């Protein structure tokens, strides 16, 4: 069984074993009056499971998932980088399957987050990055681990991270996070990506630090961080 926050997925049957908590949002009312008819015409997800076109696996990207992406379920974007598409292809595929099974519309999100997303989508600008998922600021964030977390990556990578954390502590950095989901200066979660190190400096500014072997990965990490939090100070290092 896989637990996705709101529901369990039974891998033997590739099915979620309970109903989507957000399913009521996709079910039309009995068309007894004008208000109900108007409501039915404005169902989220263009009718959800009641619109047969939504059962199409690649309809979210105009039947061309190689060229287009739809990270937030509202607009189709031209994929900006072939490398990113290739790297994320597996995750996208799984995300799409989940959506079809659930009759939901928010791609790549669990049912629980879909509910939050639906509540916040009118006021929150969603992240353009598919792997992050727009998070409501009110959702809070995990407590910081103060840089004391499990080993991340191989020895070289982890040693470089620990060395950086030691330096930050000496400089009096606060809210230090090692390999935790991205937050902003207020400690609110802004993305599901996990920068190697995050902290707030003495001026209250939020820093994200990444160290990579591969320059392409490094650039992608930087793009994701900036997209999630434009105010973050991003520092990308390459491991020699």
């Amino acid at each position, binding site marked *: 069984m896989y637990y996705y926050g709101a529901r369990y997925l039974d891998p033997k049957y590739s099915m979620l074993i309970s109903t989507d908590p957000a399913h009521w949002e996709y079910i039309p009312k009995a068309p007894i009056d004008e208000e109900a008819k108007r409501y039915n015409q404005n169902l989220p997800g263009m009718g959800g499971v009641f619109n047969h076109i939504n059962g199409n696996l690649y309809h979210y990207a105009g039947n061309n998932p190689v060229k287009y992406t739809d990270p937030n379920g509202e607009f189709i974007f031209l994929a900006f980088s072939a490398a990113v598409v290739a790297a994320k292809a597996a995750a996208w595929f799984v995300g799409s399957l989940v959506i079809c099974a659930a009759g939901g519309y928010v791609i790549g999100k669990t049912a629980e987050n879909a509910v939050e997303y639906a509540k916040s989508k009118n006021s929150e600008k969603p992240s353009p990055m598919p792997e992050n998922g727009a998070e409501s600021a009110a959702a809070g964030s*995990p*407590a910081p681990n103060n840089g*004391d977390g499990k080993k991340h990556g191989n020895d070289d990578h982890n040693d470089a991270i620990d060395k950086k954390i030691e330096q930050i502590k000496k400089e009096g950095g606060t809210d230090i996070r090692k390999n*935790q989901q991205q937050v902003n200066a207020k400690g609110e979660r802004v993305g599901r990506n996990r920068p190697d190190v995050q902290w707030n400096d003495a*001026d209250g500014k939020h820093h994200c630090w990444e160290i990579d072997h591969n320059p392409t990965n490094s650039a992608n990490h930087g793009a994701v961080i900036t997209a999630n939090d434009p105010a973050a100070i991003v520092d990308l290092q390459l491991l020699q």
Partner: protein
Amino acid sequence: MFLSFGLFFDIKDIHAFCTNELFDLSKYSNLDITFVHEEIKKDDIKYLNKAAGLKSYDGYLFRQKDSFVIYINNLSDNWITNIEFTCAKYGYTGLYIFVDTESMFPAYKLYYFKGNEKRIIYSMKDGERWVFFSHGKPQDFEMGELYNERGATKKFNYDKLLLFCKNLGVNLESQELLIPTESVYHTYAK
């Protein structure tokens, strides 16, 4: 339940502590912090103890309780860096507790500093899953098998955190611990 506080065992004189450069918060931040010795109402504690993600940088509270100095504010990391740094530099013994059962990311965190040595045990919901982390040499009163159970919340939870603190002479169940009944040092950040 939400608890977040730091505690120094070796510091007996709160006045010297709050006015000494040892714990000069302004050294680590651009905030202009003023120490004020005044009465604190019970309701202020609610303001100080807020869950992670609802941070603000308005107030800190120092008070003396039994034989230690307790330090409360509304930061989710409670300036733990500062506590760690102070303990390491001056050889003090300190404790940091963080318990959050209210938010969607619950956590039970315990950091025990003894000079340069540190003992860290925490279990918290980090993103979508619970994680358990243990670092440092176990204390004499710890029973290793406590952390052998399967599942992060069984390995370390509020009961085990309570037990650890009791062994150090800190009773988390005591209301007097966190709710001030006497005058305290309150700091303002401007």
